[in-house]
C-alpha cells in the first residue's frame, strides 16, 4: 500500500517537476521572481551590453552613414547582382519575426498550454526582428532619404506609389505586420505592467504606470482584454501568412529564372517559421541560462515541445524545397536549368549543400530523439544551425540566383562589402534591444503562467494521476 502511495507521490512529484503548469508557486513569490529577474543586472550584463552597443554603433549606424554619404558603391552590389545581403537580411529578419506570432497567436488559438511562459519572449523577437528587417530594406535603397515617397501620402502633384509593384505591397504588409504585432505584444503586457507597477519604485514605477494604462484587474478589464487579445490573435495570423507570402512575391513576381516560381509563397512562409522557431529556441536557451529564476519558468518540456515543432517544420520545408526544385527543373527552361546547375556546382555550391545539411540533415538527425530535443544546449545549437541554413537559403535565392540571368555576357559574382558590418550591426542591435527589453519588461507573462497553473490540476482516478485542464475563457 505504501509502495503504491509512494509510487503515486513519486509520479506526481515527477509530473510537477516536469511541467511548469503543475508546479505552481505562490503568486507573490512568482511575481517577485519575475521582478527580480528584471532588476538583477550584473556587470557581465553591462559588458555584453557595451560590446553590443559598440558593434551596433559602428556596424549599423556609422557604416550606414558612410554608405548614405558615399553611395551603394561601398557595398558589393553590382550588375547583375543588384540586390545583395540587404535583401537577404530583410527576408531573414522577417522570417525570424514569424515565430513570435506563430507561437503566441496560433498556439494561443489552438490552446497549446506549453506556450504560456514564452509567448512574450517570442513576440519581442517579432517586434525587434521587424525593426532589423526595416533597417535592412532601407539600407538597400539608393536614396533612402526619399523613402517616404513610397508612402501613399496626399500631395499636390497627385503622385502615389505604384500599387502594381510587389515592393509597395511589401511595404504595406510589413507596416501592417509591425503595427499589428506590436499591439499584440502590448495587450498581454498590460496586466504584467500593472503587476510591475505595484511592485516597483522610482522611475520604473513611473514607466510601468504609464504602460499599464491604469489596469486594476477588474472583471470588466479582464473581459475586454481577453476579447481584444482574441481578436488580435485571430487577426494577426492571416497578416503573418500574408507578410511572408508577399515578401516572396518580390521574387516570384519577377521575370527571372529561378525566381518566378508559383510555390514561393508557402515556401517562404514555412522557411520563415523554420528560422523563427530556431531563433525562439536559441533565445529561450539564452534567457534560461543567463537570467535569474528562468530555470523555473522555462523547462526542458518547452524545448521538447518546440523541438517537435521544429522537426515538423523542417520536414515541411524539405517538402517545399523539393517541390520547388522539382517543378523548376522539370520545366526545362534553359536559363533555369543553368541556374540550378550553378546553385549546386558553381563557386558557391558549398553553400547550397550546407543549406541542406543545416536545414534538413542536422535537424532530422537530432530532433527525432525526445531526450536530445529536451536538452537545451543541444536543441538551441540546432536552432542556430537552422538559422545559418536559412540565411544561406536566402543568400542562394538573392545574390546567387541574381548572378545568372538571360544575358550571359553580364553574369558576375557578388562580393559583399559594407554589407557585412551592416549585417552584423543589425544582429547586434537586435540583441541589444532584446537585452534592454529583458530588463524593462517581464519576459515571462506572469499572469498567463498563473492562469495556466490555476487551470491545471492533478486528479486521481483510481491509482492513476491524471492532468486536467479546466476551460477558463
Amino acid at each position, binding site marked *: 500500500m505504501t509502495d503504491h502511495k509512494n509510487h503515486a507521490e513519486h509520479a506526481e512529484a515527477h509530473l510537477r517537476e516536469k511541467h511548469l503548469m503543475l508546479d505552481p508557486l505562490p503568486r507573490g513569490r512568482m511575481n517577485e521572481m519575475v521582478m527580480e529577474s528584471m532588476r538583477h543586472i550584473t556587470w557581465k550584463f553591462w559588458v555584453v551590453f557595451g560590446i553590443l552597443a559598440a558593434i551596433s554603433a559602428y556596424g549599423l549606424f556609422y557604416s550606414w552613414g558612410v554608405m548614405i554619404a558615399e553611395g551603394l558603391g561601398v557595398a558589393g552590389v553590382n550588375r547583375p547582382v543588384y540586390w545583395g545581403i540587404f535583401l537577404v537580411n530583410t527576408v531573414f529578419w522577417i522570417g525570424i519575426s514569424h515565430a513570435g506570432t506563430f507561437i503566441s497567436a496560433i498556439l494561443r488559438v489552438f490552446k497549446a498550454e506549453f506556450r504560456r511562459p514564452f509567448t512574450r519572449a517570442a513576440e519581442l523577437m517579432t517586434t525587434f526582428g521587424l525593426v532589423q528587417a526595416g533597417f535592412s530594406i532601407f539600407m538597400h535603397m539608393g536614396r533612402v532619404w526619399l523613402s517616404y515617397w513610397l508612402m501613399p501620402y496626399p500631395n499636390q502633384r497627385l503622385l502615389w506609389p505604384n500599387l502594381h509593384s510587389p515592393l509597395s505591397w511589401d511595404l504595406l504588409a510589413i507596416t501592417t505586420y509591425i503595427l499589428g504585432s506590436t499591439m499584440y505584444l502590448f495587450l498581454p503586457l498590460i496586466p504584467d505592467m500593472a503587476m510591475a507597477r505595484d511592485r516597483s519604485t522610482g522611475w520604473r514605477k513611473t514607466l510601468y504606470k504609464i504602460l499599464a494604462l491604469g489596469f486594476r484587474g477588474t472583471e470588466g478589464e479582464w473581459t475586454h482584454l481577453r476579447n481584444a487579445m482574441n481578436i488580435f490573435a485571430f487577426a494577426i495570423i492571416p497578416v503573418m501568412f500574408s507578410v511572408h507570402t508577399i515578401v516572396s512575391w518580390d521574387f516570384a513576381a519577377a521575370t527571372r529564372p529561378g525566381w518566378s516560381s508559383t510555390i514561393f509563397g508557402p515556401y517562404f512562409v514555412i522557411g520563415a517559421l523554420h528560422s523563427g522557431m530556431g531563433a525562439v529556441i536559441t533565445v529561450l536557451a539564452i534567457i534560461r541560462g543567463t537570467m535569474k529564476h528562468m530555470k523555473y519558468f522555462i523547462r526542458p518540456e518547452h524545448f521538447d515541445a518546440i523541438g517537435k515543432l521544429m522537426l515538423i517544420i523542417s520536414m515541411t520545408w524539405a517538402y517545399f524545397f523539393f517541390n520547388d526544385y522539382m517543378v523548376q527543373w522539370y520545366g526545362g527552361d534553359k536559363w533555369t536549368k543553368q541556374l540550378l546547375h550553378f546553385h549546386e*556546382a558553381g*563557386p558557391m555550391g558549398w553553400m547550397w549543400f550546407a543549406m541542406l545539411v543545416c536545414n534538413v540533415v542536422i535537424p532530422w538527425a537530432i530532433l527525432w530523439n525526445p531526450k536530445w530535443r529536451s536538452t537545451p544546449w543541444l536543441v538551441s545549437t540546432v536552432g542556430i544551425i537552422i538559422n545559418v541554413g536559412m540565411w544561406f537559403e536566402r543568400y542562394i535565392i538573392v545574390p546567387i540566383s541574381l548572378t545568372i540571368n538571360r544575358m550571359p555576357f553580364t*553574369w558576375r559574382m557578388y562580393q559583399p562589402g559594407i554589407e557585412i558590418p551592416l549585417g552584423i550591426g543589425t544582429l547586434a542591435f537586435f540583441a541589444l534591444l532584446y537585452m534592454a527589453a529583458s530588463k524593462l519588461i517581464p519576459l515571462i507573462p506572469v499572469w498567463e503562467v498563473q492562469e495556466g497553473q490555476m487551470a491545471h490540476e492533478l486528479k486521481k482516478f483510481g491509482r492513476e494521476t491524471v492532468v486536467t485542464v479546466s476551460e477558463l475563457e
Partner: protein
Amino acid sequence: MSEKFSRRDFLKLAGMGAATTAVLTGCGPASRYVKREPYQQMPEYNYNGQSTYYATTCRECAAGCGLVIRTIQGRAIKTEGNANHPLNLGKTCARGQATLHGLYNPNRVRGPIKHARGDRLYAKANDPFNDNFDDAEPNMSWDEALQTVADALTKYKPEEIGFLMGMAPDHLFDLVTDLANATGINAPVRFGALGMFESRATLSKAAETLFGEARMPFFDVGGAQVVLSFGANFLETWLSPVSYTRGFASLRQAETKMRGKLVQFEARMSATGGKADEWVPLRPGTEALVALAIGRLASEIRGGAMPRVFSSVDPIDVASKSGVKLEALEHIAAMFANSTGALAIPGGAALGQSNGLAVAEAVLALNALADNFGKPGGVYFSPLAPSQTEYQRPASAKEMQDFVQKMKDGKFKALFIHGVNPVFELPASMDFKGALANVEQVISFATFPDETAAEADFIFPDHHGLESWGYQRVVTGSDLPVLSGAQPVVAPYYDTRAAADVLISAAQLAGGSFAQALPFKDEVEFLRGKVSALMGEANGSFSAMDAVAFMASFQQFGGWWKMSDGRTAPSAADALNQNVKGDAAEFAGEGEFFFIPFVSPTLAEAGANKPWLQELPDPTTTVMWNTWLEMNPETAHELHIEYDDVVRVVSEAGAVELPVYVYPAIRPDTVAMPFGQGHTAYGRYAEGRGVNPADLFGGHFNEAGDLAFAGMKVKIEKTGKKRPLSRLESMMGVYGVGLGEEH
C-alpha cells in the same frame, strides 16, 4: 555622294554660316575680324538652349574626318560627323567622339612653361576622380616664350635646327616646310605611331616597285565580293578606319549586290578578323608565301600562263610552312579566282615583319591577278589632296632612327617638337629620350603633359585641336581629293597659343630670312593664303568671289573638295612579272613565341588620357583601363598560366610585366599585346596604366624601312602575381569560368 541636302543639313549649314562670323569674333587670334555690332542682335551662341554647330576636322588621328561640333554658350558639347564630308559622311569613330575629353582634360599644359627636363608637369594624381587642378603653373609670359623661340632660331645655325612633327595638322607642316625652304633649316620630319604600325612606307614602296608610283593605295572594300585581308586591321585604326568601315558595311550589306566575303589571314584574331567570314591563323612571317600560293592556285584555276610572280612558289611547301591546310588554300584560291570582285589587302602585323615589303608586293600582285586595278571593288591610288603634287608619307622608323642618330651625334642644337610623342611612341631601344640629352634646347608645343613634353626645356602649348585653325589633307579613304578644314569651335580654355602663330611671331622677332619666310600677320592669314589658292580650281565643292568669302565657306563646310573622282588606277602592266621574294620572315630574339603588337582599336596612340576611351571595352577582349597579353588557352594550360596571371614578356630589347588574357583566337605559338597604354606621363588617366609594347621593340626594319614590330620572338616568364583585368564581359557567361562545367 548625294546631291540632296537634308533640311537638317540646311539648317545646320545656315547656322554655321551665321556662326562663322560669330566664331571669328569669338576666338583668340581671329579677333581681328570683329565686326562690331550693337548687342540688339545677340550672337546666337548666347541664346539659352540654342546650339551652334561648327564644322572642323578631327585631330585624334591623321585621317582627317570632318566633324561638326555642337556647342552651347561657348562650350563644346558633342562631336558629330560632318554629313557632307566626303571622307566620313557624317560618321565618327570612338576616338572622334572622345576628343572632347581631350579638350576638357583635367591635365593639360595651361600656358608657356620653362622647366627642368624630366620634371613632372602635373602633380601625381592617381585618383581619376580627384577634382584638384594639379597642372604645373605656367611660369613664362608668351612674350618671353616668343623671344625664346626667336632666339633659338637665330642662335643656332639653320642646319642645327630640327622640327619633329606629328602626322597632323598639315597646315603647320606646310608652314614649317615653307620656313625651312626659305631659311635652310632642316626640313620638318613627320612621324606618328599609327603611321609606324600602318607601315605606310612599305605600302608606298610596294606601289612604287609594282606600279612605278610611290602612292598610297586605296582598297575599295565596299565594291568587292571577296576580300582577302593579310593582317590589315582596317576596321580598327588602319589608315582611315571610318571610311574603311563604311566600305566593309557595303561589302556585307549593300542593297545592290550580293553579300561579300571577308577572309582574314593573321595569327591573332583582330577586331577585323573577328568580323571575317573566314579567319585563317597562319604562322607569322608566311603571309607573302600564302599570298603567292593563293595566287598560284588561283592562276591554275583560271588557266592560261602562270604569271612569273607566282611561278616559283610551291603551295604544298607553303601549306606546311604556314600551317594553313592545303585544302584551305585551295578553297580560298578558288573563291578568289571565281569571284568577279576579288580584292586583297596587305596591312597590320603582316607588313611589320622583316619581309613586310615582300608581303605588300605579293598581295598587290594578287590584285593584279584579279585584274581589279581602277575598278569598283579593286585597288586605286588614293586621290592626291587638292594642290598636292605627290604623296608625302611620314618618316619610316628607319628614317626616325637616322633622325635619332643625328640627335645623338649632336647635329641638332635646337629641336622643336609638335604633335608627336616620340618618347612614348618610338621603340625604347632607339632611346629617343637619351638622344634628347645631346640636344641643347628642346622646345615642345605639346597640348598635353606627355612624356616628350616632360623631357623638353620649354613647353609652349598649342591649342587643342578643337581650338585650332588649320587644315588636313585626306591621304586615303575618300574618292574625292579633300582638303579638310579646321577652325576653333570654342575659345581656348587655357593660355595656349597656336604653334603656327608662335612660329610666325617668333620669325618676325628673329627678323631676316625668317621674317621674310613667314610674312604673315598670323596663322589665319597664312591659312587664307593657302586655302584661297584653291579658288581657281575647277569643279570644287564651292566657289567664291574673293579670298575672305572663300575662307568663310571653307570654314562653314569644313573643308574644300573636288567634286570629281580623284582616284587613279595603278598601271598593272608589270605587276605580275615581278620577282617577289617569298621567303618566310626572320625573327629577332630568342623566345619561343611570336609577338604581335597591335594598336588598341579604342585608344590608338594618343587616346589613353581620355577617360571615356579608357572605359571603352576593347572590341575583342572587352578589357578596359589596362593592357593585356593575349595567349592561346592551350599554351596557357601548358605553361600553367591562368587568366589575370601576370607574366613577364622578355624580348631582345626589353621586358614588360602584364596580365594574361587567355584568348581563344590566337595561335598557340603567338602572343599579342595592344599598343596605347603604358604611359609614364600624359595625365592622370594615362599615367601608370598598363605597359608599352614599344619597350620591347628592337631596331629591326623591313626593306622599306618600316619597323619590323611583329618580327620578334619573345620569352614568357611567370611572376606568380595576379592582376585582375577590368572586363566588360562575364568570365562565367563567355568562358564558363566558375560555372562548374567540366574543362
